[in-house]
């Protein structure tokens, strides 16, 4: 029977020859991930189940990335619960401040993820890893606690929607704009419970970091997972980093899709998602004059080294607008180090930016750049819900790093061509 890549990975992990959308299956998990906000509840569930030891101390990965370096006493307590659990369970891959960055950046970067795997994480953006041809989905803490205990979980096989991207990209258009434009077309529940499979000539040419940005935001359309079939770009990325053997699956040409959408990219300009929804997108030329107080470049969506390089191209020799705050947070210590070596950080500092330590930062309104009532920010992150980055009266506009950098110079939302 013909299957999609998602179905093939799920079938393999369920020990079945074939699976179909709607099947309720029990799968073996290759990696389970949690962070300082979700791990404490997962650990509580794990303890209640009454198992003494995690299913595999090399397959549970714990990353301190959300409210670290600890932002207050309560966050410190939560981080401590995770730290002590990691010690007690001999978790091999526990990443402490200093070696940790954003989980969704360091897991691929350190070679934990290869094609064909099944990964679950107690974080909605776990779908990021699908860019490497793996099945990867976000769950809650109780699910993760049960996975830590058993190494297994139940899943319903999702139907797949295939998005074929064709045509030529306009200048400054990146993976961020493709995914924002797609979410704008199908809506925030346009792929509810489904797999989003990104394909077509445009995706085949897309560098790895932009693919991560696309699968990262699949959850913003309600999807269970986002996925891209592995190719040479994928394989050379993992070969440089991983000792695990990739298992390459591709969708059969006669696989059954819930829907196939062709997206012609020729007219897609850099996108800006207006608050309070990632689906509320406009072309940059339709934004109008919106003055801003803050720009944030970073997060699991756009905290990659290439994202910083792109922002640097815009900021080189320029200064940010007077009174504006530009906050840059590299996604990992390695990215931070390389950005220093390449002179990127110096460019940012010269432009007037402040650099934060690798972590999730203000993306979810935790710390390091909370917005006050009435303030507006351009952010390279993934969500612009009411109050997402601070006061419920503040506003977040989502964009790619080039637009974010240009906006920081302009003091209003604008693209590099406006400079």
């Amino acid at each position, binding site marked *: 029977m013909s299957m999609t890549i998602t179905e093939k990975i799920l079938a393999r992990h369920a020990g079945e020859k074939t699976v179909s959308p709607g099947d*309720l299956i029990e799968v073996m998990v290759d990696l389970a991930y949690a962070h300082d*906000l*979700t791990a*404490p*509840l997962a650990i*509580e*569930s794990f303890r*209640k*189940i*009454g198992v003494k030891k995690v299913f595999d101390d090399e397959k549970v990965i714990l990353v301190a990335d959300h*409210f670290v370096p600890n*932002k*207050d006493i*309560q*966050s410190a*307590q*939560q981080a401590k619960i995770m730290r002590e659990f990691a010690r007690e369970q001999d978790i091999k891959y526990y990443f402490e401040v200093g070696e940790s960055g954003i989980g969704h950046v360091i897991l691929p970067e350190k070679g934990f993820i290869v094609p064909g795997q099944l990964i679950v994480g*107690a*974080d*909605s953006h*776990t779908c990021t890893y699908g860019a490497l041809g793996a099945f990867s989905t*976000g*769950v*809650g*803490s*109780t*699910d993760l*606690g*049960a996975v830590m*205990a*058993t190494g297994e979980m*139940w899943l319903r096989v999702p139907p797949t929607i295939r998005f074929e991207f064709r045509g030529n990209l306009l200048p400054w258009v990146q993976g961020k704009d493709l995914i924002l434009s797609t979410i704008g077309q199908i809506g*925030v*529940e346009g792929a*509810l*419970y489904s797999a989003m499979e990104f394909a077509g000539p445009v995706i085949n040419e897309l560098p790895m970091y932009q693919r991560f940005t696309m699968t990262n935001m699949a*959850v913003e359309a*309600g999807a*269970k997972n986002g996925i891209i079939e592995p190719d040479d770009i994928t394989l050379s990325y993992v070969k440089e980093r991983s000792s695990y053997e990739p298992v390459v699956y591709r969708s059969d040409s006669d696989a059954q899709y819930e829907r196939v959408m062709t997206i012609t990219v020729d007219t897609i300009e850099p996108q800006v998602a207006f608050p309070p*929804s990632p689906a509320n997108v406009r072309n940059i030329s339709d934004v109008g004059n919106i003055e801003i107080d803050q720009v944030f470049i970073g997060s699991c969506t756009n905290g990659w080294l290439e994202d910083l390089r792109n922002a640097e191209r815009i900021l080189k020799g320029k200064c940010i607008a007077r009174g504006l705050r530009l906050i840059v947070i590299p996604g990992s210590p390695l990215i931070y180090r390389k950005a220093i070596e390449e002179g990127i950080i110096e460019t940012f500092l010269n432009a007037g930016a402040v650099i934060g330590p690798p972590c999730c930062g203000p993306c*979810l*309104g*935790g710390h390091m750049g909370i917005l006050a009532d009435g303030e507006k920010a351009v952010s390279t992150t993934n*969500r612009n*819900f*009411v*109050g*997402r980055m601070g006061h*419920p009266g503040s506003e977040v506009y989502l964009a790619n790093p080039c637009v974010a950098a240009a906006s920081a110079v302009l003091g209003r939302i604008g693209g590099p061509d406006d400079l």
Partner: protein
Amino acid sequence: MQIRGKVWKFGDNIDTDAIIPARYINVSDGDELAKVCFADHRPEFANDVSNGDIVIAGRNFGCGSSREHAPLALKTAGVGVIMAKSFARIFYRNAFNIGLPLIESEEASEGLSDGEEIVVDLATGQVESTNGQKSFSAKPIPDFMRELVQAGGLVNYLKVKKIKEK
């Protein structure tokens, strides 16, 4: 199992940041979280909600972050069941995993208003207003999900399963 309570009506795409803003998830204690449930979105909720009350919402309830603090806050606050046109998938799993039942219903979402007293039968999906004026039949909860709720959530379900397997 029947849930009886008053309706709290919400719109479409209620995200988990609205249910529990991130600044409050530096704790994992249900009682603490319940105190700030809908803190920005509907500040009177945490104070005025009673045991067994019912949240009625539109499409895609619980979208966004995977934080289980959201269903935990709702459940601890006393919410007995949530009915919506549709639910975001992580929230759907999380709610059943902690034993908070969800029911999909277009009709209930369209037909009920804030403050109405209703009775919801989880087994049949039958919804009645206590004044007898309204009656809907929603899709009953899938068997597997009902098992989870009956067991009191995934943790207890696994415990029972483990005992059976032994």
